[in-house]
C-alpha cells in the first residue's frame, strides 16, 4: 500500500500549486488548533488560580494555587470523594463502552452476514429507533427501575449500552465495506463455528471501527450526566459529572471554590485523555488498515 501512495504522490506532485494549498492548509489547521486548545489552556490556567483570583476576572498566566486546589479537590470531605468518583466513572464507562462496541459489532455482523426471515424488519426497526432521543423514555425507565429495584445501581448505566443503534449503524456500514462474505465462507469450509468466526476472523478486521466507537462510547459514557443523575443516589457511587454538578450548584447558595471546580474538571479529563492517547494511535493505524481491506 505504501507503494500505491508513493505513485499517487508522484502523479499528484506534478499537479499545480501544492505550495499555496499547503500554506492555506497549515493556516487553517493552526486556527483550528488554537480554537481547540484555548478551552484547555483556560482550564489549566484556571486550575492554578484561587477562588478570589478567578472571580476577579480573566488572566493569561498561571498563578501559584495549583497544589492548593489539588489538595482541596482531592480531600474535600463535603463532597463525595473525587478519587472514588473517578474510579466509579472508569468502571461504568469502561464496561459500557466495551459492551457497546462488542455487541454492536455482533449485531451488525448478524444482520449483514446471515439471511433470515426477520433480517429486513430487524434492520428497518433499528434504523427507525436510532433517532429516538434517550430522554423520551427516561420517565418510563425510571419507573421500571423502581419496580425491579435497580435504582442506585450501575447495571442500568451499563447494560443498556448493549443496544446502541447508532453504533450498530456505523458498524454495519463498516462491515459492508470491509468484510467480504467469501472470507466467512472460507472459514466455514475450514470448519470454524460461527461464533468463533466472528471473534477470530471478523473482529480483527473491524478493529478500526471498533477503536473509533470504543473511544466515542467511552467518552459519552464518561461525560454522561443525564442518566446517572437520575439513577444514582449513594454518595460513594456517584460518577464525576454528577459530583461536578453537585459542586457547581453548591456555588449557587453558599461559599464554593471555583478553583476547586476547575481542578476537578481537569482531573476528570485526564483519564479520558490518557485512554484517548492509547486508542487514537490505534484509530489512525486502523483507518489505514481499513483502506487496504477495502
Amino acid at each position, binding site marked *: 500500500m505504501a507503494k500505491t501512495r508513493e505513485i499517487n504522490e508522484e502523479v499528484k506532485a506534478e499537479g499545480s500549486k501544492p505550495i499555496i494549498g499547503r500554506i492555506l492548509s497549515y493556516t487553517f489547521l493552526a486556527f483550528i488548533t488554537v480554537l481547540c486548545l484555548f478551552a484547555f489552556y483556560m482550564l489549566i490556567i484556571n486550575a492554578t488560580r484561587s477562588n478570589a483570583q478567578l472571580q476577579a476576572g480573566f488572566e493569561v498566566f498561571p498563578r501559584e494555587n495549583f497544589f492548593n486546589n489539588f489538595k482541596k479537590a482531592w480531600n474535600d470531605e463535603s463532597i463525595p470523594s473525587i478519587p472514588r468518583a473517578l474510579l466509579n466513572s472508569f468502571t461504568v464507562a469502561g464496561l459500557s463502552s466495551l459492551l457497546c462496541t462488542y455487541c454492536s459489532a455482533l449485531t451488525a455482523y448478524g444482520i449483514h452476514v446471515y439471511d433470515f426471515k426477520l433480517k429486513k424488519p430487524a434492520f428497518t426497526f433499528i434504523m427507525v429507533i436510532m433517532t429516538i432521543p434517550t430522554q423520551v423514555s427516561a420517565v418510563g425507565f425510571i419507573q421500571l427501575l423502581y419496580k425491579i429495584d435497580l435504582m442506585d445501581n450501575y447495571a442500568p448505566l451499563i447494560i443498556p449500552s448493549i443496544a446502541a443503534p447508532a453504533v450498530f449503524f456505523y458498524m454495519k456500514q463498516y462491515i459492508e465495506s470491509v468484510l467480504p462474505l467469501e472470507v466467512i465462507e472460507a472459514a466455514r469450509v475450514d470448519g470454524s463455528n460461527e461464533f468463533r468466526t466472528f471473534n477470530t476472523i471478523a473482529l480483527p478486521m473491524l478493529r478500526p471501527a471498533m477503536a473509533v466507537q470504543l473511544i466515542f462510547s467511552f467518552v459519552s459514557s464518561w461525560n454522561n450526566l443525564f442518566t446517572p443523575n437520575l439513577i444514582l443516589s449513594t454518595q460513594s457511587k456517584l460518577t464525576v459529572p454528577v459530583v461536578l454538578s453537585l459542586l457547581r450548584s453548591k456555588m449557587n447558595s*453558599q461559599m464554593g471554590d471555583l478553583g476547586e471546580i476547575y481542578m476537578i474538571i481537569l482531573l476528570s479529563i485526564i483519564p479520558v485523555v490518557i485512554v484517548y492517547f492509547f486508542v487514537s494511535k490505534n484509530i489512525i493505524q486502523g483507518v489505514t488498515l481499513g483502506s487496504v481491506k477495502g
Partner: protein
Amino acid sequence: MKKRILTALLASAMILSAASCGEKAAEDTTTTAPAAGGDAAATDAPAAGGDAAATDAPAAGGDAAAEEGKVLNIHAWNEEFKGFFEKYYAGTKPVNAGADGEEGTADDVYYDKAPGIPEGVEVVWTITPSDGGAYQTKVDEMLKAQETAAADDKVDFFLAEADYILKYAGSDKTLDVSTIGVTQADTMYNYTAQAASDANGKMKGVSFQCCPSALIYRRSIAKEVIGSDDPADVQAALSDWTKFEEVAAKAKDLGYYMTASYAETYRTFSNNATEAWVDADNNLVIPGVVKEYIAQAKKFMDNGWTLPDGIWGDEKNAQMFAGGKTMCFFGPAWYYNFSMGNAQDPDAGCFGDWAICQGPQAHFWGGTWLLAATGTDNPTLVADIMNAFTINEDICSALVQNEKQFSNNTTVNQKFADDPNYGNAFLGGQNDTAIFVELAKNIKFENSTIYDQLLNEGLPGQFLGYFEGTATEEEAYAAFYQYVNENYPAIVTP
C-alpha cells in the same frame, strides 16, 4: 496490540468493579461515628482538643439510643447544618475549621460539650442541591419509599426551607415530634413552630435558626453616598422605598449600584404578602406585593440602579469583593455568613466593611427546619438532636458566638444582644444580634402554600426580559404562567 489494550481495559474495569463492591460497605458514609472520627483527628492533631472530643463524645448520648437503628440518615440541600452538626453535636469537626474544610492542623479545637453520637451509630448525609426543585424531588422520593425501605435506609430526619416546609409539615410523612419528646419551648420564636406545624397544630420539627432579614450595606460606600456609615443614620436615610430610590439615584451619580441583582429586593416584598399565591380553588393569584416588586425592579433596571444579574449570579457575587461597586444586599445572618464568601476572602474581600440595618421593609428570608420523618428508627437520637439545637443553651450560644447565627433561642439571643462586648467583626464590630432581636418581632409566617419555592424562585427570572425591555409586560406574564403550568399543573393560571 488492540487486543491487548482491550484485555487490559476489561481486566482493569473488572478489578475496579470488584473492588468497588468490596469497599462499598466500608465507604458508604460521608461521616462516621465519633469514636472513629475523633480518634483520627486526635492522631492527626495531638493537641488537647482532639483527645477531649474523642473521649467525651460517645459517652453522653451512649445508652439512650442503644436499642435504635445503627444508621442515622439525614437529607439536606447544602453543607450549612452539616457543619454545625459535626462541630457541636457529633464533635467530630474542629470548631475552628474553615469554610474550605481544612482540618488536621495543630490548632484544632473541638467543642468539648458536644453530646456525641451513640457508639455504633453511623451518620449518613445525603446532600442534594436545591436547584430547580431537585432537593424536594429527592426527599419526596425517599419519603414515598420510606415504608418499604430497610430500617437502615429509612430517612430519620431531613432539612426543609421556609418556601416548602408546609408541604412536608402538612403531610403524614413527617412525625409529630411531641411523640418523641420535642415540644415547643418558650424560648423558640413562635413562627418557627407555627411553620413546622400541620393544620391541627401538631409540630413536626424545629428550626435551629430564626431568619429576620436585614439590609446589609458596604460601610465605605454608604459614607460616600449617604455621608455616614452609622447603622442609625443609614436606616434613617433608607427607611422607606421612596428614600431608597432617592439614594439609589444618588449612588448612580457617584458611580455605584444600589443593588447587584434585579431580584435583590424580591423577598422584602414577597415574604410580606397579604394573600397566598394560590386561592382556595387553586387559582393563581399574583400577590399585590409581587406586583409592587415588578414595578420596582423595572424602575431599577431602567435607571441602571441595579446590575442585571440573578440573585445567586456570579456577577452579583463578584460585587462582594473589595472592588465591588454595590452598596446594598439583603439577607439574614445565614446570608452573610454562608453566602458572602467573597466579602470574607482574605485577599480580595472587604471583611469588616459591612454593617446591617432594617432597611425600607422588615422581612424574613429562608430558614432551615429539621423535620422528623415518619418511620425513623432513631427517634431518641433525632429528638435529642432537635432539642440540642433549640433548647441547649451551650450549643445555641456557640452558634451565635462562633458561627454568627441568629439562634432559635430567645434567651440566648437576648444575652448576646445585651452584651456590650459582643460584636461581629465582619460587620465592623456591630452587634448584629441586637438588630435581629428587634427585627424578629416582625416576622409573620403567613399565606404560605406548598408551591412557594418554585413560584418565588421563578418569578424574577421570567420577568427579566420585561425589565430589560426585550419583552412586554404581557409577554412576561404569559411566560410566567407557562412556567407555573409546567411546574405545578394543579394550579389554574389566568
